[in-house]
């Protein structure tokens, strides 16, 4: 297939630039993780950062807040960069909601890619296996995970979540830093991604839990105009987080990842019906 045809296929009818941004960040983090190992062996790639993934994780900033406030120190393995990335992530969340989840997070991207395979296998049944009642309750589990991680990190002064973090495991599976808990959760997430879109994001991600709160008051809001809406359910079907966009005017759901797939720019067929807007009603 010619490159131009491939590009046309890639850019057809979706937020293609999001995919591009996702690929970029996935590749960047993968290369940095590899370079970290190379640096430890004395052979780093010169022009690329060789920081540890802990140093580049914005959630690290969240978990070290308590220790920084009480002792003036960072949790072991965390540095100023974690604080800075946390602040930048929160700034983006204040503007648009959890765009970090929908556009940047390499682990979300990993799940999305596996989800494409699940869609091919299960067609329309994909992402609709979990009963609605169970799903609704499970969506709040990530706040329990968040509370547990923050408490345990504060109590132990160590990066306790690293032992269970599937994201860290994915990009360090070759290193001896990987713990069995992380490997199990990575395998489980990969398997579930074939049935459910972004299972880790929906049910367990503590950083997603933090960013999700910003959907309640983000400056750019996802707005649906009922007067223009055909009520064809295209927005509902396409939403990876199973949000009933067609039943709302302003989307404040804490699970929205600001992926824009439901907007009139992507799957909504009527221009100006679902958009990201600031100001107004």
């Amino acid at each position, binding site marked *: 297939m010619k490159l131009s045809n491939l590009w046309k296929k890639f850019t057809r009818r979706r937020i293609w630039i*999001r995919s591009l*941004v996702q690929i970029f960040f996935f590749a960047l983090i993968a290369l940095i993780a590899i370079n970290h190992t190379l640096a430890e062996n004395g052979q780093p790639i010169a022009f690329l*950062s060789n920081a*540890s993934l802990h140093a580049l994780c914005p959630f690290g900033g969240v978990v070290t807040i308590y220790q920084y406030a009480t002792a*003036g120190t960072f949790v072991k393995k965390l540095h100023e*960069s974690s604080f800075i990335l946390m602040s930048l992530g929160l700034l983006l969340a204040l503007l648009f909601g959890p765009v970090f989840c929908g556009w940047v997070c390499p682990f979300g991207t990993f799940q999305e890619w596996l989800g494409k395979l699940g869609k091919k296998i299960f067609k329309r049944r994909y992402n609709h296996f979990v009963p609605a009642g169970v799903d609704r309750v499970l969506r709040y589990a990530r706040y329990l995970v968040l509370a547990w991680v923050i408490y345990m990190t504060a109590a132990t002064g*160590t990066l306790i979540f690293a032992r269970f973090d599937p994201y860290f495991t994915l990009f360090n599976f070759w290193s001896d830093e990987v713990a069995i808990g992380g490997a199990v959760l990575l395998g489980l997430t990969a398997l579930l991604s074939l049935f459910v879109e972004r299972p880790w994001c929906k049910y367990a991600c503590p950083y997603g839990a933090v960013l999700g709160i910003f959907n309640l008051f983000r400056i750019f809001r996802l707005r649906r105009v009922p007067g223009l809406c055909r009520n064809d359910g295209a927005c509902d079907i396409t939403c990876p987080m199973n949000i009933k966009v067609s039943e709302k005017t302003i989307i404040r759901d804490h699970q929205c990842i600001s992926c*824009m797939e439901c907007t009139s720019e992507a799957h909504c067929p009527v221009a100006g019906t679902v958009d990201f807007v*600031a100001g107004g009603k």
Partner: protein
Amino acid sequence: MKITSKPMALVILIVLFGGIAVTTWLGWWATETSKVPVTYPDGELAGQYNPADIRGSYSFGDVSELFIIPIEDLQLAFHLPVEDPAGFDLKSLEALYGDLETEIGTASVRLFVARYKGLPYEPTEETYLTVEGVEILKLQGHLTPDQLAYLESHRVDLSVAAPVAATPPILAEATPSTPVGATPAATLAGPQTTPAPVETVHAPPDRTITGKTTFQNLLDWGVQSSDIEQVLGRPMPAADTIIKNYVTGQGLEFSAIKNALQTLVDQVNP
């Protein structure tokens, strides 16, 4: 105001990379430790380095320089390799003592430094020190009764448990690497206060067979080689062979052999 995907992508990239660029320019961005711990913010210790911020990426030389602790004391306390103890990274302690049931790692160094200098620090996890480390801290004289009680209940006798190769010689005088103004505790104490357990690396004083005990230890404890061979059911190997290595290498069950040999040891009067 409406925003579409392309401007949003641009904003995301600008905020993230612009934020990193600006904070780098301001000198705030750091993905690894500067090897300078934070200082106490206020009180009479204001401005002094806080041992709680010691990181695994520090070398013992860094710790020695920053907290003015003789490298010899650190070497003795943590059984550092004889060659280049100052270049030994704290995070490598975990590998050095990976066989121990209790962890001796960076937290142990934080605790040691804090107690050595009499600085406030509360360990956030069960933290252990070597018996030599505890002895050195006693000599420094900064310990409160509670701190002493904690250390007495959280000390590990590496002469029994640690790799023999990791045990340094006792250093009785300062070397040129000693920080200015610092005097090793071993020198201060003199020979009569030198921590005793180090001298017994090859003969654990409590006559308990461990994974590091050699056949020579058994002979030193008075066990006859014929009795040992009877337990083994075969000729005894070279005396400096570690019992566990030999037994497992022969496909025998170490715990059963150990128990039988321990019975022989216990039958011999010390």
